[in-house]
Structures are given as structure tokens and as C-alpha cells.
């Protein structure tokens, strides 16, 4: 039965349902237990699963990320929460050098079924150190998977898929979305990785994005529709694996493509997708692929500057107009 719940509740349901089914799964991170989660994602889980499975850690990302990877090598299935993906940078050696490469370096002997999850992205006036969008950095590494949920329904289905996956999954949530509500079925369901979802159909321009910027894409699409420009908005869902098939199919139809990406433009997800659209849809393009990224500057604190830095509906609207020769 679907009912309306918050994004954070959907995440918790996915974790709790999996933990009830499989006692190899445990949740570890800063403030996940007694504090009930810094963002209340794990609220109540300590009560249900107890301190052996809902484990508070010190502020020691490199340590507990590595601990989780070691436990995964032994066959457990840890969920490691980063309060913010910004803090994962101090655990970079563990999450990039060990988790994604263990299977390969050991010649297939030791896998690493682990989920790292937490808040990703700017938008809360937290200044530069706390506003990381890590997808461009981390998606570069083979051996890991990377998912970005869009709404509560996606959050629950994708997180379950992540937890059941035998490979390391980086699960990038957005603090700005945790309180939004949406219809979510009771009981477990999975959303497969590598299958994009078309959030809005349109024939005039393809917009590809992931996670929170999709809201701006849809807002822009509504505005553009008033002028007769119908955008097709694609929620990529996962960056590794990336569903190029859906993107290519859409671009073949629309002949225009805008990629919206909240990370910096240089060597970013949008750069990757643009390159691949140019390769795979060259003869279908009526204009070069346009990219809307965060500005190429550290995230500022001031509200107006931060809003200007991030992708927003105005920038997306302008990009669509320009790329479809409607500027």
C-alpha cells in the first residue's frame, strides 16, 4: 500500500527491511544510534536492532570506512553512513583504494559488498568544505557503483538494490530532499541499477540529470512548455552503471541535449555524458550538447552567491533555449 512518507523515512525503511531479512547487514556511522541519526534517517533503528547492529562511531571516517571494508571482506554487508559525503574525503584511501579494487587485486577472492551512504551536494549555506558534490570525483573509479535517488520512492527502491548488491555502492542522498514527501509502497521493492527513468516526456529537447537538480529541470521544463518547447527530462538514477541507452534513444528523438550536473564542470559527469552523446548520437544532433554545472568556484556561503553557483531553473531554461536555437 503506498502512503506518503518522507525521503528519510524511505531510506530507513529500505535499511530496516533489509536488516530484518539478513543479519549480516549492520549500520555504522557518526550519530546513527543514540542520536537517532544526525538527519534522523536512522531514527528508531537502535531500538529495533540494538547496539550490536546500529553502531555509533567516533568522528573517524578513515577508520570506520576501513573497518566496514574489512568486515565486508569477511562476508558481512555493512552500511556505512557518512554524515556528509564531504567528510568522505578523509576516508578517500579506504573508499577509493580498497573498496572498489579489492575484488580485482585479490583475483576474484575477496569482494566488498558494502554501501556508503550520506548527504551529498550544496545548497544549505554550509560553505565550501561541507558542500561537496562527490559524484564527479568518485564515479571516475572502476569497481564501485554510484546511485543518486530523486524522491522517496526512488530512495527506498534504489537503497534496497544497493544493499543487496555484492559490490561497493556509493549512495548519494541530498540533505535538501530529506523532508520531501512522496508515495512509497510498504514492503520491499527494488529499482534496478542502470535503468534511467523518464520523469517527463517531450519531443523537443532531452535534459539529463541526477538527484536534486532534477527538480530544477522539471521546473524549467514546465516554463519552457508554456513557450511550446517540450523537454524530455531523464532521471539517470545511477551514474555507474550509466543508462546511455535511454539517453541515446531520447536524443535521437529530440536532436538536442542538455546535461544538468551539480558538480563542477571540469571532468564532470556532464562532461562524460556530453562526450558520449556526441559519440553515440553525432548524426542526430542539431547542436552541440549543452551542460549546466555548478560554477567552477568553491561553494560560497552567502545565500545569493550559492544559489547563483548551483544549477537552477533559470540556467537550465537558458541552456535549453540556446541549444534549441530559441535564445
Amino acid at each position, binding site marked *: 500500500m503506498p502512503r506518503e512518507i518522507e525521503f528519510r523515512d524511505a531510506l530507513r525503511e529500505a535499511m530496516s527491511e533489509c536488516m530484518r531479512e539478513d543479519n549480516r547487514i549492520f549500520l555504522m556511522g557518526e550519530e546513527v544510534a543514540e542520536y537517532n541519526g544526525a538527519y534522523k534517517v536512522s531514527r528508531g533503528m537502535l531500538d529495533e536492532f540494538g547496539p550490536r547492529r546500529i553502531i555509533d562511531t567516533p568522528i573517524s571516517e578513515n577508520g570506520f570506512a576501513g573497518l566496514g571494508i574489512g568486515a565486508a571482506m569477511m562476508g558481512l554487508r555493512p552500511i556505512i553512513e557518512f554524515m556528509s559525503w564531504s567528510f568522505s574525503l578523509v576516508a578517500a584511501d579506504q573508499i577509493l583504494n580498497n573498496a572498489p579494487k579489492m575484488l580485482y587485486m585479490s583475483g576474484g577472492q575477496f569482494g566488498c559488498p558494502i554501501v556508503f551512504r550520506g548527504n551529498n551536494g550544496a545548497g544549505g549555506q554550509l560553505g565550501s568544505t561541507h558542500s561537496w558534490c562527490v559524484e564527479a570525483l568518485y564515479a571516475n573509479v572502476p569497481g564501485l557503483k554510484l546511485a543518486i535517488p530523486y524522491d522517496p520512492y526512488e530512495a527506498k527502491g534504489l537503497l534496497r538494490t544497493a544493499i543487496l548488491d555484492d559490490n561497493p555502492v556509493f549512495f548519494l542522498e541530498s540533505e535538501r530532499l530529506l523532508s520531501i514527501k512522496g508515495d512509497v509502497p510498504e514492503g520491499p521493492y527494488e529499482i534496478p541499477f542502470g535503468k534511467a527513468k523518464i520523469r517527463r516526456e517531450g519531443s523537443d529537447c532531452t535534459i539529463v540529470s541526477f538527484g536534486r537538480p532534477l527538480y530544477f529541470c522539471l521546473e524549467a521544463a514546465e516554463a519552457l512548455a508554456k513557450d511550446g518547447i517540450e523537454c524530455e527530462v531523464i532521471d539517470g538514477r545511477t551514474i555507474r552503471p550509466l543508462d546511455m541507452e535511454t539517453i541515446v534513444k531520447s536524443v535521437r528523438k529530440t*536532436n538536442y541535449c542538455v546535461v544538468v550536473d551539480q558538480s563542477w564542470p571540469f571532468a564532470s559527469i556532464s562532461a562524460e555524458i556530453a562526450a558520449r552523446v556526441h559519440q553515440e548520437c*553525432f*548524426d*542526430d*544532433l*542539431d*547542436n552541440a550538447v549543452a551542460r549546466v554545472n555548478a560554477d567552477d568556484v568553491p561553494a560560497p556561503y552567502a545565500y545569493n552567491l550559492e544559489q547563483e553557483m548551483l544549477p537552477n531553473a533559470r540556467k537550465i531554461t537558458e541552456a535549453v533555449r540556446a541549444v534549441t*536555437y530559441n535564445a
Partner: protein
Amino acid sequence: MPIDITMPRLSDTMERGTILKWNVKEGDAVSAGDVIADIETDKATMEMSAYDDGTIAKILVGEGESVNIGTAIAVLAEEGEDPKSVSGGGKAKGENTAKKQDAESGESGSRVAAAVSEKKDDEADTARDSSTDKAPASRGHERGENGRLRISPVARRLADDNDIDIRAIQGSGPGGRVIKRDVMQAIEAGDETARAVPPAAKRRTESAGETMPVQAKRVDLSQPIVLAGKGDDEPRPLESRTIQLSNMRQTIAKRLVESKTSIPHYQVSYTFNMDPILALRGTLNKQLEPQGIKLSVNDFLVRACALAMHRHHEFNASWKGDSIQIHGEVNIGIAISLPAERGGGLLVATIRNADHKSLRIISAESKHLAEKARTKGLSIEEMSDSTFTISNLGMFGVEHFTAIINPPNSAILAVGAAIQKPVVRDGQLAVGHEMAATLSCDHRLIDGAMAAEYLQTLKQLIENPATLLV
């Protein structure tokens, strides 16, 4: 304060520069970094970029004109200035401009000569009358003219699929790029002018002539003649349509009318026994094959015509109205037709000092020039200063034709195919190769007997081709 754009120093030894082409016209907005003109220096053709943002208020030096370094060639109005109120240059012109000698123009019309005067005037008018947002369309055609057509990939595909001639479409995208919308409009409008020319008309031609059996080109009359729309698709009826003139086409029209109406042409034809030259060519090509060299009949003709000049100076001369200019160099022009994809048309490439060059070098140069003309286009230097021109339609199986003199040449040789036919040799009927060539001469310099003598010399050289090797 308006900014003078001056002739830049683009090479260490450059003293003067020639404006080959303006990429902007008066009234155009430019940004720092935009390529505004192509400049020919003593060494190369270079792009000239703007250093400031603004609007082109005046163009002071037209295409084809050359000026010293530092001379103002255009005036840029800065933001807030009214381009129309900017008077003729921030300062007086540094010097009188010198129109580049006409030497490089010809039957084919070089893209430089590309109608220097007409174009300038036309565009000046356009600029005065229209706002800058019309610029992309006209720029699109400039692009098309030098062969570099801007079109998006999907627009190209759509045009191909629907047999739309993209050159007839006004591009509405940036820089005149033809975009999907433009092609769709052309399709929807049933724009007949945009229907592609049948492939037969797109056929490339070779300048370096090969002998070719006539029958290979002969139409099989037992089959119905159809003009295929695209490859072997179903036939399409001939349709009425209008094709806008490219600048090259305009130039060709103007120059050839000028030539044909102002020069007293007359023609003299001759038939050459081609067996010796074909035999020699066969032997040489077999020997040269490992080096990747293949001589054409035309290479022999270039060499022969050039050598003949040493006995017949008037054929290497120009009519100057009150004098005759005998040239010190023998530069043989070869007419090259351009492929339809590059806008079609003709140009004349110059083999300089052909009388001092071996067959091997002539062959390499003409191949290089033909290839470059069809792909990247030729530089001014590669098209200028010819003193005599050869036009060869032999590869089409043409037996005989006449050509119009390429000013300021005094003659042009029109060459047909070397054709296998019954011939009388030493009183015996035999099978041999013969080639007809027709010389068009300017009667102001060259009298009929002189033409006959030149052809005799040519015949000697061609029928005793060993002399061409030394």
C-alpha cells in the same frame, strides 16, 4: 573613441599584407578574438583577430587590396559609439591601396578575386540597411562560398534523406549554421529550389587528364534515360527551380563575359598522334610505380606547352593596351573543376616555371594542387600569375572543344581525349591514338600563322616525347 584596426605584422619578414577576405562587414558586432579577416602575407595566409569588442564602423581596405603594415584597414566603434557617425577612419589612410594585379584571376575566377567590388558594395548596402541579426544568414553564404558549410549533423542527415540541397538553405543557427529547423522548413515548404541536383551533375572532374576509352562514357541508348534522385532510387521528373549565384559563379560569369567580349578570339585546331607519348608514358609509369608516381597525359602537355614558349614568346604574354608584356617566367595554368559539395565552379591552378620543371615535379604539383583545390581550397599564390592556360576535358571523352581565354593570358589550349581510331601511318591504315587540341588566341597579339607555328612546335614535342624528358 573609435579604434583603428591596422594591418598587422604576421610574419617576421612581412612588410605589406593583402586582405584576402573580410569575415565581417560594416555594422557587424565583433568580440575580441573573433577572426575578422584573412590576410595574405609574404609567407602564408593568416587569420586576423580583433583585439577589442565593438562594431565594425568602416572597412577601409577592400578584399584583394594590399597595404603596408600599420595602415588602418578598418575602424571599430566601441560600445556606446554610433558606428554610423564614425567618419572614414580614425586617421587618414596610410597610403593608397594598391589593387593586386589581376594576374591571378582567370577563366575559373579565383576565390580571391571573388568579386572584390561587387561584394563589397552589396554588403555595405546590406549593413547599412539591416540590423546585425541578419548577419548570420549572409555569413552562412560566405561560408558556403569557400566550401566550408556550417551544418549540424542531424540537419545534414535530414537533408540527405530528403534530397535537399543544403547550399540553397539559409542557415539560421550561429555563424549561419544550417540547423534542423531550416531543413524541416525547406522540406515542408516543398522548396523546389532546395532540391538537390542529380548526382550526375555533382560528378567530380579531373584536371590531370587520363586517356579514357570513349565507349566507357557512351550512354547505353537501349535503356531508358532517367535522372536518379539519389543513387539508384526511383526516377524523379525534372523540376523548375532557381539557384542563387555563388560568388564564384558570379565571378566566373563576369570575367568570362569580359574576356569573350573584349578579346578578339579565334581558334586553331590540330590533331596529334598520341601513340609515342602513350608508349613512353606506359614505360615511365611502369618504372616509376615503385615510387608511387603516375604521370598523366596532361603532365606531358604542361611540359610541352611550357617548352614551346621559348620559341613563341607571344604565347607567354599579356596585352597591355598600349604595349605587349612578354613574361620572363613560364607559368602554366591548369583549369580545375570543383566538386559540387564544395560549391562547384572552376579555378585555375598555376604550375610556376613549368619550363624548368621535370615531368615528375609537374605531375606531383598538379596532383597536389588539384587535391588541395577540392578539399581545402587554394591560396592566392597557387592561383596567380599564370601566363598560359590548359583546359582538358579528355577524361570525359570529349573529342574537341574550344575554350575562352583566361585574362591576362593571350591564349588557352583546349584539349580533348586521346582516342583510339583508324589512322593512316606511312600510307597504311592502322589503329592508333589521336588527340585533338584547339588553341584560342588573342588576335591583338597573335596572328593565325603564329598560332599554327606554335601548334607545329607542340606537335613536334608531343610526337617526339623523348625531348620532354631532357
